[in-house]
């Protein structure tokens, strides 16, 4: 079975680096399943889980936006933050979710609203990923 290298990089560090068989991500245009020898592609990502399949195992990573660069034998995901499922702190994510909910309910000006919405998405994404393992 053919494989490729998958890297997830944030400004702070390299979060993930493994040889994998398949990656599925959610791009701005929709879901993408990527296998080795995919045509080179660059696309921004939504705040969503990234699923990586390797040797029968499945890794799920909570990726906060960013974008993916696909090459024939290598995939690089660049995001402002990314966490492996087992590294996610549930309490923090719950707290963040609640904070975001309060802000959304408070209905401030547009910028704050958008920011709260993004925070909400990030928190939901983390919780989703955490629940999948």
């Amino acid at each position: 079975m053919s494989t490729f290298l998958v890297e997830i990089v944030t400004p702070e560090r390299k979060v993930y680096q493994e040889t994998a068989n398949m990656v599925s991500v959610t791009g701005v245009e929709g879901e993408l399943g990527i296998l080795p020898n995919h045509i080179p592609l660059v696309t921004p990502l939504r705040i969503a889980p990234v699923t990586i399949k390797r040797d029968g195992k499945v890794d799920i990573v909570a990726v906060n936006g960013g974008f993916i660069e696909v090459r024939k034998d290598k995939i690089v995901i660049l995001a402002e933050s990314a966490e492996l499922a087992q590294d996610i702190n549930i309490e923090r994510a719950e707290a963040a979710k609640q904070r975001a909910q309060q802000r959304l309910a408070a209905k401030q000006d547009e910028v704050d609203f958008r920011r709260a919405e993004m925070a909400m998405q990030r928190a939901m994404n983390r919780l989703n990923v955490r629940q999948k393992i």
Partner: protein
Amino acid sequence: MAKGMRDIKREIKSKQSMKQITKAMEMVAASKLRRAQGAATAARPYADKLKEVVASIAAGTKDVKHPMLETRPIKKTGYLVITSDRGLAGGYNANILRKVTQTIQEKHTSTDEYVLFVIGRKGRDYFRRRSMPIVEEVVGLSDAPTFADIKTVATAAVQKFAEGAYDELYLYYNQFVNAITQIPTESRLLPLDEISEGTTVSAYEYEPSPEGVLEVLLPKYAETLIYSAVLDGKASEFGARMTAMGSATKNATKMINQLTLTYNRARQAAITQEISEIVAGANAQS
């Protein structure tokens, strides 16, 4: 004990405790420096990769139009200045602030012509005292700043440029060379210079479109540049503090030696005088 001697003794003691403090600060700065350097290195792959992709889009597609790449006539200028929260770091803050002030005085006649973004308490206080226009500020940054810590100021700086609040953005920070050398650096962040590297770029597919991808990437790229400047600034701060405290410790040692010498001399003089007094007294009696 003569009075002069007691004073000297007190002075030696105070120098000694000062030396202990500076020595401790030096060692703390040294260990933090190592960590800061590590963080700066860890951030490099992200910045490099972003640059590579942005460059390949710029090279692969002709006539990409984006507000962040366009040079506009300059009516207003933005300055992003990176300083530290705490002092005792030698010329770290003074150098960078002097450079900024000089540039501003040369280029502008009124406070309407520029705005400032400041990171670090020292810089903020400095500009505030001179009532210069600060738009956004970040203070109390941790020793290992995360991207989220500076995201607000970075995003604001980039967005205000895109909105046309100013027509160029300069970045001022101390570039880290090594522990004893930090260079106050000025670099133009926006509009982005031609990012052209003659690397073999693979022809990518872009989804939804090259312009759409660029729209997302360019602000990120600029923010990343700011972040790496912050990390560089942190490393410089610890380097500067380490060197400053190192020389402070050295000076304290020198002063202690000098004072000990004076003290011993005074002590010897007192003893000699006492002996000669006794001898004189004995002689007078016989």
